[in-house]
């Protein structure tokens, strides 16, 4: 017993090092699995508060570009209203209020911390459970998708950006119904990849990619980007497509959060025997 205590005292530095090192590795591995990183995330009151006060100051620097983006969106929506009044409503139009009505709840929030340089990027937004947010809600801007909420606190939430190697979102070609999943290879913040698109799909450069209707998170038809480049997989059965994003992920401020009010029901139907 004496010897064990002596050993611990003699090697206390190395033992402390090993202990702390394994704690950090455990935290790292835990953060790799979806929904598990409860402790170390930026959506708590401390880091969220600091980010919010910093963003209150830095917001003034990009007011002009944000105003332009808002004006552009107003312009687009206004033209839709005016054109929709005198022509017949087309079922292919991507923001068709009749199909959205009653199934989705939309609210706005502001990004207070934006990351895009690591391989696992997250954003922090200034709304949380107090504002009715919860996990698995879709986050978009006027131009395209941003990510999915993966962690909430009372006043802040963390968004899993599409620029994260953990992110996997259902997407499809706008011109046909071939679906695939949207992933990121961590190379460029302007490009994401669409994998598992069947080789029979009519892919062309410049085609638009939108979200697919297979997920209960995103509504169908939210724009993502255009096809920049595509190649067959090694197996030769599926395409891997490089997509140039509509969104400039490096300059985000105002976002919309979409809640699918039918999500519960869809999930219940899909997993009748719950785990």
């Amino acid at each position, binding site marked *: 017993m004496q010897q064990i205590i002596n050993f611990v005292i003699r090697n*206390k*530095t*190395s033992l*402390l*090092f090993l202990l*702390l*090192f394994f*704690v*950090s*590795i*455990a*935290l*790292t*591995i*835990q*953060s*790799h699995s979806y929904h598990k*990183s409860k402790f*170390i*995330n*930026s959506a*708590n009151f*401390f*880091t969220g508060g*600091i*980010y919010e006060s*910093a963003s209150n100051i830095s917001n003034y620097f990009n007011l002009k570009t944000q105003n332009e983006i808002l004006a552009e969106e107003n312009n687009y929506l206004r033209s839709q209203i005016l054109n929709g009044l005198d022509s017949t409503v087309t079922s292919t139009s991507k923001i068709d209020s009749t199909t959205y009505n009653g199934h989705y709840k939309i609210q706005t929030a502001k990004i207070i911390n*934006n*990351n*895009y*340089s*690591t*391989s*696992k990027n*997250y954003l*922090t937004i200034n709304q949380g459970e107090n504002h009715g947010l919860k996990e698995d809600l879709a986050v978009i801007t006027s131009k395209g998708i941003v990510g999915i909420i993966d962690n909430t606190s009372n006043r802040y939430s*963390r968004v899993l950006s599409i620029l994260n190697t953990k992110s996997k979102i259902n997407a499809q070609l706008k011109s046909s119904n071939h679906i695939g999943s949207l992933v990121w290879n*961590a190379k*460029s*913040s302007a490009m994401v990849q669409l994998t598992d698109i069947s080789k029979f799909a009519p892919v062309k450069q410049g085609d638009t990619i939108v979200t697919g209707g297979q997920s209960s998170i995103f509504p169908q038809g939210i724009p993502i980007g255009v096809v920049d480049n595509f190649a067959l997989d090694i197996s030769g059965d599926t395409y891997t497509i490089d997509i140039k994003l509509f969104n400039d992920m*490096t300059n985000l401020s105002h976002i919309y959060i979409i809640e699918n009010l039918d999500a519960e029901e869809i999930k219940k139907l899909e997993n009748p025997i719950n785990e």
Partner: protein
Amino acid sequence: MNSLNINNITRFVVLILAQALIFNHINFVGSVNPYPYILFILLFPVNNNRTLFIFLSFMLGLFVDLFSDSGGVHAAACVTIAFARPPILKFAFGMIYEHQNIKFSNTEFGNRVIYFLFLIIIHHLILFSLEIFNISNILLVLKKTLFSSVFTLILCILISVLFSNKQQ
């Protein structure tokens, strides 16, 4: 002694805030970010309690992790360089370190650069390999380590020269 403590506490807080609010968002040519918060570990007084030092390094890394949503990668890298500091001190400064009365502001510039460089490279290598966590992306890890290390080294030297209080 007291002023030394206050000095270190201010350094701890200021470096974490600077890292979270400024240096994480530099994104030079797309994605190169410096991590000069490890100056706290680099410039921590030498003849001091080692267990306390390792623990403080862990807390430093954990706070940066908290801000940058990175699990525990910064904590792991910080703990490692805190543990590996004595051999590197010995390697970089030789005899002066043996006498245990080293003061970083009095050391030669060349020695200091070598000392910074070694710890920065170890830190960044662990940081990026844990962050990317994928053997097939080893080239990306090395590339990021190289670019970030250069950036961090330049900033660390600049900051330590600017804020050194030389009495002579």
